[in-house]
C-alpha cells in the first residue's frame, strides 16, 4: 500500500502524527476481549423475543399461558405488563421538519408495523428454553395492507403505514440557497438524472446485546450494552425507568463494530432488558442473533433522487436542484438526520451559488432507518457526481476538467451556503479545504491522461474497462461537546477517561498519543477508558465522525491543564521560577542543574492524603509549601483535570476517490483493477489508524456499490435475512487501496483535526457508477443506481445491443 503525504502538515510533533502501534491489541488478538455476550452471566435470566411475522397487522390477542408454563421460564411479558415504561420511545433528534413522528412502543401495543417488531419478551434459564417458550406464545393477528415500495408509499392514495401520518410522510423539508428557480430559468444547459440507492445496513460483526443487573437493596442498576452512546443510554434509562441517574451505570464493554447501527437509542431491547432486571430484581441478559439483527436492528440508504444541474456553456455550474424520497421504514424514532445530512451535502465541493434541495421522508412497512456510516452522504455524493458526469457529456467537456473548474478554491474559504443547515442546526460553512490537489493526486495515480488510449486498446481486445471518480465533502466534529478526565496516578501512569465509546476506532491508542505528547510520557503508561459512565458520564457518544475531533480536543485540554499545574508545582518544589524549568520525559526539570521531580512525585506531593503511601524516594517536599492548609484554597488534590471541548461549528473534511474497473463481457462481474483515494481529515493523529478507518469505510462502500441490498417482497418479508443472501465483501471483493493524505488543518480546534470515521464509505458507489458508465459508454449504456449487479448490467447492455 502506498501512502504519500501530498500536502504535509506544518509543525509535526513527536507522538501525535506517528504510526504508533495499538495499545489495545494484545488481549483482542488472544481472544481475551470482553464483549457483552462474554461477560459473567451466572444467574442471568436469558431473554428471547417473539417478533412479528407480519409487516402490518392488528394484534387481537396474545396468549402466553403455555409459554409461561414451560419449565425453565421465569417470566413472559407483553405490552400490557409495561405500565409507565410502555410509552412510545423518545425521538433522538426532533426537528421542525419532522411533522409526523411515530415511535414504536417497546413491545407492540395492539398493532405491528414491520416484520421483526418485538411483540413479547420471554425470560428463561437459558436462551434455548426462552426461544422454545417464544414459539409457544399464541398471537391472533389480523393482517392489514402492506406498503413496501418507496414510490408506492409516497404516491397518492397509498396504503397507510400509520393513520396519524397522511401520505406516509414523516416529514418533508426544503432548503434553498440563492434563487434556484431564476437560475434554472435562464441556464443554457440543464441535465436531469434519477439516482436510486437501495437499502442496506451497517452489519457489525457483533450483533447487539444488553445485560442489566438491578439490586433492589441498593436500587443500583448496572447495564452493559453494545452501544455507541452509553452516556445517552444512561441519561435516558434513569428517566424512563424512574430511577435516580446517579444510581444508573451504563458500560459499553468491548464492542464488535458499530457503524451507526448501534448509536440509535432506544432500541426496544435497550429499555426492556433493564426494565426486566428492575422488575425481576436480578441479572437479565439478551444477545441478538443474526437473523434477529437483520430485522430488529436498523437499516439505511434507500433513497430515490431526481437531480438537476444547470450550467453555463463554459462549464460553470450555476444551480442544483434535487428532490428525493427517503425511506424511513416503519417508524421515525431516530429523526430525520439521514435525509437532512444528505440534503446539506448535495452541492459537494463545488461552487454552486443556487441550491434547491427537498425531500419527503416516507414510512414503509419495513425495518426502521437510522444512520449508517455516511448517514446520507453516500446517496448525496452519488446523486451529485453521477449528474456531474452527465453534465460533462452534455457540454462536451472532459469530466475532470468540468470538476476542476467548479471546485471551491482555497481562497474562497470559509465558504458559506446560506440556506443550508447542517445537523448541528447551523448554516453550512465550509471552514477549510484544498480540493484540487486531491483531484490531481488521484488522476496522476491512475494515469488518467493515458487512460483513453488504454481503454481503446482494451475495447479492441473485447475487454470492458472504465475509470470512475467521485469527490466528496463531509461535515464532521459535531457537538454539543465531549469531555475527558486526565489524572496522573502516584505510580506515574496516566489515567484517561473520556465520554465517547469505542467500537474499533483505536481510541485507547489515539487519545493516549495526545496525552503522551502533552505530558511527555511513554504511550504505554497512558491508560484510556471509554464507554463507562462510572468513569466519565458527560458526553454524547461515538458517531458522525466526531470522536477524534471532539474527544481528542477535550483530552488535549485536560492534559494541558495537568501539564500547566505540573510545571507550576514542580517549579515550586525545585525552588525555581516557571521560566527555569521544562517538562521532559515525564518530569519537571531545572534547566540549569538538571534536578527534577517526576509527574508521579508531583501527583503524590500535591495530594496530602498520599504522603508516605507511595515511593517517592526520598519523599519530596509538600508541593504547596509548609505555610497554610495542606490543600490551599483554590487547589485540587493531585494532578487531575477535566477538560471539555464544544465545537462552534462542524469542521469539513473532504476527499477524492478514483478507480479503474473491468467488467467481464460474459458474466458482467465487476473487478476493481485499481482503487486510489486522496482524503483530507486535517491533522492526522495516527496515519495507520486513519488509513484503517478509510479502507474499512471503502470496503463497506464497495459492498454498497456492488452487493448489499435488503430484498423485501411486496408483503414486507425480508427475503435475504442471512449472510448467505445479503452479500458483504470478503477479502476477495475488496481491492488493495492506495491511500494518500492531504492535510488542511481545521482552523476550528486546537489540534487542527477533522473527522474521518465515515469518509471511506461516502464515495465508492459513486465511483463505481462513474467507472461502469465509462466502461459501457460506447455501448450507449448508462447507470445511476447502487448496488449494481451483474444481472442488471447484462440486462442494460442487452437492451442496447
Amino acid at each position, binding site marked *: 500500500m502506498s501512502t504519500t503525504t501530498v500536502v504535509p502538515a506544518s509543525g509535526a510533533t513527536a507522538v501525535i502524527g506517528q504510526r504508533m502501534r495499538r495499545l489495545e491489541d494484545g488481549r483482542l488478538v488472544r481472544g481475551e476481549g470482553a464483549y457483552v455476550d462474554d461477560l459473567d452471566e451466572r444467574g442471568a435470566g436469558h431473554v428471547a423475543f417473539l417478533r412479528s411475522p407480519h409487516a402490518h397487522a392488528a394484534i387481537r390477542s396474545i396468549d402466553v399461558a403455555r409459554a409461561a408454563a414451560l419449565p425453565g421460564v421465569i417470566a413472559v411479558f407483553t405490552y400490557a405488563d409495561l405500565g409507565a415504561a410502555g410509552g412510545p420511545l423518545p425521538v433522538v433528534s426532533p426537528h421542525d421538519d419532522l411533522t409526523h413522528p411515530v415511535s414504536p412502543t417497546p413491545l407492540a401495543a395492539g398493532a405491528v408495523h414491520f416484520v421483526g417488531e418485538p411483540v413479547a419478551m420471554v425470560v428463561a434459564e437459558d436462551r434455548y428454553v426462552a426461544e422454545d417458550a417464544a414459539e409457544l406464545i399464541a398471537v391472533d393477528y389480523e393482517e392489514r395492507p402492506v406498503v413496501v415500495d418507496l414510490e408506492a408509499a409516497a404516491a397518492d392514495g397509498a396504503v397507510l403505514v400509520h393513520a396519524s401520518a397522511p401520505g406516509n410522510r414523516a416529514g418533508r423539508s426544503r432548503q434553498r440557497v440563492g434563487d434556484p428557480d431564476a437560475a434554472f430559468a435562464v441556464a443554457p444547459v440543464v441535465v436531469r438524472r434519477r439516482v436510486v440507492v437501495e437499502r442496506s445496513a451497517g452489519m457489525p460483526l457483533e450483533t447487539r446485546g444488553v445485560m442489566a443487573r438491578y439490586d433492589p437493596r441498593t436500587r443500583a442498576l448496572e447495564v452493559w450494552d453494545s452501544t455507541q452512546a452509553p452516556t445517552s443510554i444512561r441519561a435516558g434509562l434513569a428517566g424512563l425507568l424512574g430511577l435516580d441517574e446517579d444510581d444508573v451505570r451504563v458500560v459499553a464493554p468491548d464492542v464488535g463494530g458499530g457503524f451507526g447501527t448501534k448509536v440509535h437509542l432506544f432500541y426496544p431491547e435497550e429499555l426492556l432488558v433493564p426494565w426486566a432486571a428492575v422488575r425481576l430484581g436480578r441479572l437479565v441478559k439478551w444477545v441478538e442473533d443474526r437473523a434477529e439483527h437483520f430485522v430488529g436492528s436498523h437499516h439505511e440508504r434507500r433513497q430515490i433522487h431526481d437531480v438537476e444541474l444547470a450550467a453555463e456553456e463554459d462549464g460553470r455550474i450555476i444551480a442544483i436542484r434535487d428532490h428525493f424520497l427517503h425511506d424511513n421504514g416503519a417508524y421515525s424514532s431516530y429523526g430525520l438526520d439521514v435525509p437532512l445530512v444528505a440534503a446539506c451535502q448535495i452541492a459537494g465541493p463545488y461552487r454552486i451559488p443556487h441550491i434547491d434541495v427537498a425531500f419527503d421522508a416516507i414510512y414503509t412497512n419495513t425495518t426502521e432507518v437510522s444512520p449508517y456510516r455516511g448517514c446520507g452522504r453516500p446517496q448525496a455524493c452519488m446523486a451529485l457526481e453521477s449528474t456531474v458526469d452527465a453534465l460533462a457529456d452534455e457540454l462536451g467537456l472532459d469530466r475532470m476538467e468540468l470538476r476542476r473548474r467548479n471546485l471551491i478554491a482555497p481562497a474562497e474559504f470559509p465558504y458559506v451556503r446560506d440556506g443550508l443547515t447542517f445537523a448541528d442546526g447551523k448554516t453550512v460553512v465550509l471552514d477549510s479545504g484544498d480540493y484540487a490537489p486531491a483531484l490531481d493526486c488521484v488522476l496522476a495515480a491512475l494515469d488518467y491522461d493515458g487512460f483513453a488510449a488504454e481503454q481503446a486498446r482494451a475495447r479492441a481486445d473485447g475487454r470492458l474497462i472504465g475509470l470512475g471518480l467521485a469527490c466528496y465533502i463531509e461535515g464532521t466534529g459535531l457537538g454539543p461537546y465531549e469531555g475527558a478526565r486526565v489524572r496522573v496516578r502516584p505510580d506515574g501512569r496516566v489515567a484517561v477517561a473520556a465520554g465517547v465509546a469505542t467500537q474499533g476506532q483505536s481510541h485507547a491508542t489515539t487519545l493516549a498519543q495526545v496525552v503522551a505528547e502533552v505530558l511527555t510520557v511513554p504511550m504505554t503508561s497512558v491508560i484510556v477508558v471509554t464507554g463507562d459512565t462510572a468513569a466519565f458520564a458527560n458526553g454524547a457518544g461515538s458517531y458522525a465522525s466526531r470522536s477524534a475531533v471532539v474527544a481528542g480536543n477535550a483530552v488535549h485540554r485536560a492534559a494541558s491543564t495537568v501539564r500547566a499545574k505540573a510545571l507550576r508545582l514542580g517549579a515550586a518544589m525545585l525552588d525555581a521560577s516557571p521560566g527555569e524549568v521544562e517538562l521532559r520525559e515525564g518530569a519537571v526539570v531545572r534547566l540549569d542543574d538538571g534536578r527534577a521531580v517526576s509527574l508521579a512525585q508531583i501527583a503524590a506531593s500535591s495530594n496530602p492524603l498520599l504522603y508516605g503511601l507511595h515511593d517517592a524516594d526520598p519523599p519530596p517536599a509538600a508541593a504547596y509549601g509548609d505555610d497554610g492548609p495542606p490543600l490551599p484554597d483554590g487547589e485540587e488534590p493531585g494532578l487531575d483535570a477535566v477538560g471539555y471541548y464544544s465545537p462552534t461549528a462542524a469542521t469539513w473534511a473532504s476527499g477524492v476517490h478514483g478507480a479503474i474497473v473491468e467488467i467481464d463481457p460474459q458474466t458482467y462481474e465487476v473487478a476493481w483493477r485499481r482503487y486510489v483515494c486522496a482524503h483530507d481529515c486535517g491533522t492526522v493523529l495516527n496515519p495507520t489508524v486513519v488509513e484503517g478507518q478509510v479502507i474499512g469505510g471503502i470496503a463497506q462502500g464497495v459492498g454498497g456499490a456492488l452487493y448489499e441490498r435488503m430484498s423485501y417482497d411486496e408483503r414486507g418479508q425480508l427475503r435475504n435475512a442471512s449472510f448467505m443472501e445479503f452479500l458483504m465483501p*470478503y477479502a476477495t471483493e475488496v481491492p488493495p487501496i492506495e491511500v494518500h493524505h492531504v492535510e488542511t488543518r481545521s482552523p476550528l480546534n486546537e489540534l487542527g483535526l477533522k473527522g474521518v470515521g465515515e469518509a471511506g464509505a461516502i464515495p465508492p458507489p459513486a465511483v463505481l457508477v462513474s467507472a461502469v458508465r465509462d466502461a459501457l459508454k460506447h455501448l450507449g449504456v448508462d447507470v445511476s443506481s447502487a448496488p449494481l449487479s451483474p444481472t442488471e448490467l447484462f440486462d442494460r447492455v442487452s437492451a442496447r445491443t
Partner: protein
Amino acid sequence: MTGDGERRAVRLRVNGDEVQRTVDTRLLLSDFLRHELGLTGTHVGCEHGVCGACTVMIDGRTARSCLTLVVQCEGRAVTTIEGISPDDGTLTAVQQAIHEAHGLQCGFCTPGFVMAITEFVAEQRGRHDFSDAEIRAALAGNLCRCTGYQGLVAATRAALRDALARQARPLDASADRER
C-alpha cells in the same frame, strides 16, 4: 437446559484438556465452548456458518463451531483461540503479525482470522510468493467489517515470511555453505 430434548454424555478434548459433560443434543459447540467452558474467545457472528468468527480447529482442521453440535465432537480434539495463544501471555507469530499490520480494529472477527491464517501458514511447505489475489482467496472464509482486509493481507504475508524464516531447510543450508 430444560425442554424435552434428548440429553447425552459427551467426552472430548478441548485445548488439550479432557472434558466430560452431559448435554442437550442440540447444544452448539460454539455455545458449549463459550458458556459451558467459559472460553469466550470464539465469537458468534451469524450462526449460519458464513462469517467465520466462530472458527476453531477440530482434530487439527478449521471448522465452524456454530454449525457443529457438541455431541458431534465425541472423542475429538478441539482447539480454540485460547489453546493457540501462549500461556505466558505473549503472541504467536501470526498474532504478532496481525497486530503489527493493523489487521484488527474492533477485534470481533480476529480470533477466527487467527485460526484461519494459522492454518493457512502452517499448510505452506516453504512457499511464500503468494500473489495478493491468492492471499485474499485464502482469507475469503472469514468476514471482517472494520478493516477492509488490507492489514490482514499484509499480516498473512508477514506471517508467511516469518514461517519461512523459521523453517529448518537442510538443503538450502548446504547451498548457503557452498556459496
